[in-house]
Each structure stands twice: as structure tokens, then as C-alpha cells.
């Protein structure tokens, strides 16, 4: 090879003087629309027929879907049960608690967005956001028949917008209060929704899914990190316990664990100690989730090069500080995508609670579809539930992408 090199180099250098050695596709004038279509969609007979076929399929499915949504479907099952979808059998005279929580969260989320993302209304974003917003407002106007609820929804939206504006104006100064706000948000919400004579067993609908998901995520994240660290511990008792726990939990279906929590856990507790059904479900779900979090974190820790540990040790940092200040921050950052993926699964898996007759969203939707007056409208009952699940999961996914780009600074 070394023998051939000088000649190659010589020829290459000659060529460089005339034109680039690598042929770049000529950047002629931009293609006309007709030309673009011909080149990309109909370049050969085979591609052309594929284009026609798939185009026909899309049109066919799209037409039937739209006709179903806007013409055939009778959404009255969803409209009549809207409140049940959202909050289950939450007592009507206490529904103000849900609204109070809604306003609080709308403000908190708004301020956070205002602080974290600068105002950037590109035309493309407007093009996506405005039809979605219009669709949402239209759906709300169609579904909700109460002026009071319209007003309250308007107030929630206004709170959000005001929060964004406040966050933008005050900026970074709000980071600390915001962190405190988010840390206190969950206990605050739980207290507002349950103090006095409204117990946790009255929660239902989407509200229940969200509360369970948030609780499980908030509890299993630190627990999973501890398990991952314990698994790497030099003390065999700790590492064996962690490995055993993780493998045991991961080998059992979530539904089995939930049923265990419902029927068996109570037998293991000392007599006289009782927890609400939902607390036991959250407990088992948290064990399940923490095993997965632990494995994700372990993967992240393995990606931290040995040199990082050596550098930290050479500076005199203790093992604990090395983990907390050097290894974990790097490990957690690289695991954001699988971690959020897992959290989305956790949220979707809250629908398994339907099998235990918790009146969560899916259970509520099925119950609604079985009512006598709505027989034959199962699709209209179940599709909104699916859409609600999707909307929240999609929001989480988008949020994860934003977090990724934010903390990606300085990544090597």
C-alpha cells in the first residue's frame, strides 16, 4: 500500500487543481414541482405503481376515518361520560379540588416553559400548533355543554399563558422557586385531592392514571438508581440482594405483581396495618418499575469510561462523591431516551389497573361502552381513551427530546 501511495497522492493533487476529487451532485436550479414528483415518486415503473397504490390506500383509509369521525360516529357516549373519563366517580360537590389542581399545574407548567424555552415562533411550529389548537378548542366546544366548564377551561388556559409570559419575563431567577414548586407539587396535589372526606379510593378516570404514573415514576427513579448502585457494590450481600431483586421482579409480569399486591400483600402485612387498594397497587408497580430503572441506569454507568473514575479518585474524591458528582450525572444524561421511554411505558401500563377493577381511564371507557343506551358505539367509547393516552405519551416524548437537547451541551 505504501508503495502505491505517492502516485495516488500525486494524481489526487493534480485533480484537486481542476475540480474536487469527490464528485458532488450538481446544485442546479431548484427542481420544479412537476420535476420533483417525477424524480422522487415516478422514477421507474415499479416506483410509479407503488406510489399510485400507496396513495390510493392512504386516500381510502383517510376518507373512511374522516367519514367515521365527522359523519358516521355518534360521540354522545363520550360526551355524556366526559367527566367520568376525566375523574371517574370523583364526587361532584368536591370537583372544585380537581379544578384547583388544574389551575395550579397549568400555572406551574406555563412558568416552567417560559423559563426554559425562549420565545421562538417559527412559521413551521405555528403551522403545526395552530390547527392542533383549533381542533382541541373545536372538540371542547362540541363535547362540553356547560358554560361554567368552558369558563373554567378558559381560566386554566389563561393561567398557562400568563405563566409562560411571567416565566419569560423573570427568566432564570425563577429556576430555584420552580424546582421547589415541582418537588412540592405532587404532595400538594395529593393532599388537595384527598383531604377531608374524599379518599384516594374516589379517584378515577384519567386523573387516576396520571396520579399513579407520577407516583410510580417519582418513587421508582431514586429507588432504581439505588438498586443500580447496589448492584455494583463491593459488598456481596448488597450486590446479591440487588441482583436477586431485579431479576425476580423483571421475570414476573406486571399484572401478576399487581394481583399479588391486591390479594397476597395484605396477608404479609402485620394485622391491623392496612393501606388503600391504590397504595398497594402503587407499591407493587413501583417495585416493578424500579427494577427496569436500575437496569437502564446500570447501562448508563457502564458507558462512563474507567478514566473518569480514575481521575476522580486521583483527586481524592471518595467513592460516594465519585458516583454522585462524576459517574451518575454522566450516566443519567446518556440514559434520558431509554428512561423516558420506560416512563411512557409506565404511564400506558397504568391501564392494567382496569384488570383489578380500578376505575381508571380504560376501565371507565369500557364501562361506558357497555351502558344500554350506547350499545353498538364501542369504538366511540374507546377511541377517546386511546387518544387521551396518546396525547400524554406524545407530550412526554416531545418533552424528552427537549430535555435531551438542553443537557446535551458539552457532550463528547
Amino acid at each position, binding site marked *: 500500500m505504501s508503495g502505491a501511495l505517492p502516485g495516488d497522492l500525486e494524481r489526487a493533487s493534480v485533480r484537486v487543481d481542476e475540480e474536487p476529487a469527490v464528485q458532488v451532485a450538481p446544485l442546479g436550479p431548484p427542481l420544479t414541482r412537476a420535476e420533483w414528483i417525477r424524480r422522487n415518486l415516478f422514477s421507474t415503473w415499479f416506483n410509479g405503481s407503488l406510489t399510485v397504490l400507496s396513495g390510493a390506500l392512504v386516500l381510502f383509509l383517510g376518507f373512511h376515518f374522516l367519514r367515521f369521525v365527522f359523519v358516521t360516529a355518534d360521540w354522545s357516549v363520550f360526551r355524556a361520560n366526559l367527566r367520568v373519563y376525566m375523574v371517574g366517580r370523583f364526587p361532584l360537590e368536591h370537583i372544585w379540588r380537581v379544578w384547583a389542581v388544574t389551575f395550579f399545574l397549568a400555572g406551574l407548567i406555563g412558568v416552567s416553559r417560559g423559563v426554559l424555552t425562549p420565545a421562538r415562533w417559527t412559521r413551521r411550529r405555528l403551522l403545526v400548533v395552530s390547527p392542533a389548537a383549533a381542533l382541541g378548542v373545536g372538540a371542547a366546544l362540541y363535547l362540553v355543554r356547560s358554560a361554567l366548564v368552558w369558563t373554567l377551561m378558559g381560566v386554566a388556559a389563561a393561567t398557562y399563558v400568563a405563566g409562560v409570559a411571567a416565566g419569560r419575563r423573570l427568566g432564570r431567577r425563577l429556576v430555584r422557586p420552580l424546582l421547589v414548586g415541582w418537588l412540592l407539587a405532587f404532595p400538594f396535589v395529593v393532599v388537595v385531592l384527598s383531604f377531608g372526606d374524599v379518599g384516594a379510593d374516589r379517584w378515577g378516570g384519567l386523573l387516576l392514571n396520571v396520579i399513579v404514573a407520577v407516583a410510580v415514576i417519582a418513587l421508582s427513579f431514586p429507588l432504581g438508581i439505588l438498586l443500580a448502585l447496589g448492584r455494583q457494590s463491593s459488598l456481596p450481600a448488597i450486590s446479591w440482594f440487588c441482583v436477586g431483586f431485579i431479576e425476580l421482579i423483571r421475570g414476573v409480569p406486571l399484572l401478576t405483581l399487581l394481583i399479588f399486591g391486591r390479594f397476597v400483600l395484605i396477608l404479609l402485612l402485620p394485622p391491623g396495618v392496612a393501606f388503600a387498594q391504590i397504595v398497594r397497587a402503587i407499591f407493587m408497580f413501583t417495585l416493578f418499575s424500579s427494577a427496569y430503572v436500575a437496569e437502564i441506569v446500570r447501562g448508563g454507568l457502564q458507558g462512563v469510561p474507567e478514566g473518569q473514575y480514575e481521575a476522580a479518585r486521583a483527586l481524592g474524591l471518595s467513592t460516594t462523591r465519585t458516583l454522585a458528582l462524576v459517574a451518575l450525572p454522566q450516566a443519567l444524561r446518556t440514559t434520558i431516551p431509554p428512561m423516558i421511554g420506560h416512563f411512557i411505558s409506565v404511564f400506558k401500563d397504568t391501564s392494567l389497573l382496569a384488570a383489578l377493577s380500578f376505575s381508571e381511564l380504560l376501565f371507565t371507557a369500557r364501562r361506558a361502552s357497555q351502558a344500554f343506551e350506547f350499545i353498538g358505539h364501542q369504538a366511540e367509547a374507546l377511541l377517546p381513551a386511546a387518544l387521551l393516552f396518546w396525547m400524554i405519551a406524545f407530550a412526554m416524548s416531545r418533552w424528552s427530546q427537549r430535555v435531551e437537547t438542553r443537557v446535551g451541551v458539552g*457532550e463528547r
Partner: protein
Amino acid sequence: MSDAQPSRAGDDTMILAEDVEKWFGHFQALNGITTSVRRGEVVVVMGPSGSGKSTFIRTLNRLERHDRGRIVVDGIELSDDIRNIERIRSEIGMVFQSFNLFPHLTVVDNITLAPRNVRRWPKATAADKAMQLLERVGIPEQAKKYPAQLSGGQQQRVAIARALAMEPRIMLFDEPTSALDPEMIKEVLDVMEELAGSGMTMVVITHEIGFAREAGDRVLFFDAGRLVEEAPPDVFFTSPQTERAQLFLSQIL
């Protein structure tokens, strides 16, 4: 292992190694290493790859545990006592071939991490010290950047500043310029020469003969886990005594 005890070789000895041995499984990496380093001395360690030179300096701050013999650093014998080890490590700065900066922290946070968490300095004090050190290594304007935004030479200078921030009494360099492009080697060597001139005790693994001649007080030549030859640089480079050293020098000169 005996308890920590002051070295008997006199106050001037910063590092004392006596008959140090180290095994990796059946492979003996260090075989009977005996030497000492005086305060303010700059010792250059040379030898072919696999000769044990890197293992040797890593035993000095116990990144590697030695199996036999004894090592006394600044009057403290290295033992399994973890508190002793962490104390000694905070007195010894180390610079690695691959920099090993913390990629998730800015340059200034890289430098202040250990002073703030090990020495318990207030944030402002540590930051002032960091800026002084960045001035000293010639890149104060990079303080707010992340390591990935710097060139290799700049990263290595940050790594030197990070080690110096703990105000160490000894600095270890494990091939600090081997991973650098040729045009960046000089900027790192300049910093190291300045450091040597300031009276720092240094143990440096390097193949940079210019640095060894300019700043080195003594050359240790390792081969196959043994300390084969030990001489002042002008003697070592002009008239090496052992055949192994002659062969080695003929290959790198």
C-alpha cells in the same frame, strides 16, 4: 501492612519505594523497584511499552495496589487504610494521557470540583483559585466552556490546572503529551517546564527527550518490570550503561 509511619530516609524524601512488586495474575508488572524522589526533584520515567513505568507511577497514588514492598509518600506509608489513601491522593496531582476531564462540567467546574468537595473551600475561593490557575496555564478565556469545546492541548492544560487546584506537593504525569497532535505538544510541555522551575516535585512518564534534558533531574529507565538504569539526563542520553537502554534510545532518538 504496617501503620502509617514517617519515612526514615530524612525530611527531604517525598517518595520512597522499597522493593515494590506488583502482579497482574501471573504477570509480574513490577519487580523489586527501589528508588526515592527528593523534594523539588523532577524525575523522568522512560521505557518501552509494557515495561511497568505506568504501573509504577499508578502505585504511587494507589490507583494500583502494590503487592509487596513498601511505598512512603510524604511521610505516609501507603496501606489499605482508605482514609490514608484519600488523604495522600489529595496531596498528589495526576495528569493522564487521555486527559480524563469531566465532560459534563465546565472548565472552571472541573477545576473547582475537588477543592470544594474534598477541601471544603467556599465556592468563591475555589473559583478564584481556578482562574489563577487558568491564567498560569494560559487559557483564562476558556473558563466557561465545556471540555469537548477545547483542543487537546487546551484540555491537557485544564487537566494540569485541575490537578494543581488541590495544591498538591507532588505531580504525576502519565504520558501527558502522547495523545496530542504535534503542534500542541509544546504548549503542554511549556506549562510543565514552568511547573518544574517553580520547585514542584514531579514524576513524569514521557518520551520527550527535550523536556527530559531541559527540566529533568534524573531519568529512571524501566524494562520488563525492573528499574534497569537510573542516571542524570545528560549521562543517560549520551552514555547509557545498559544494553537495553542503548537499544531503546537508538529507537527513539
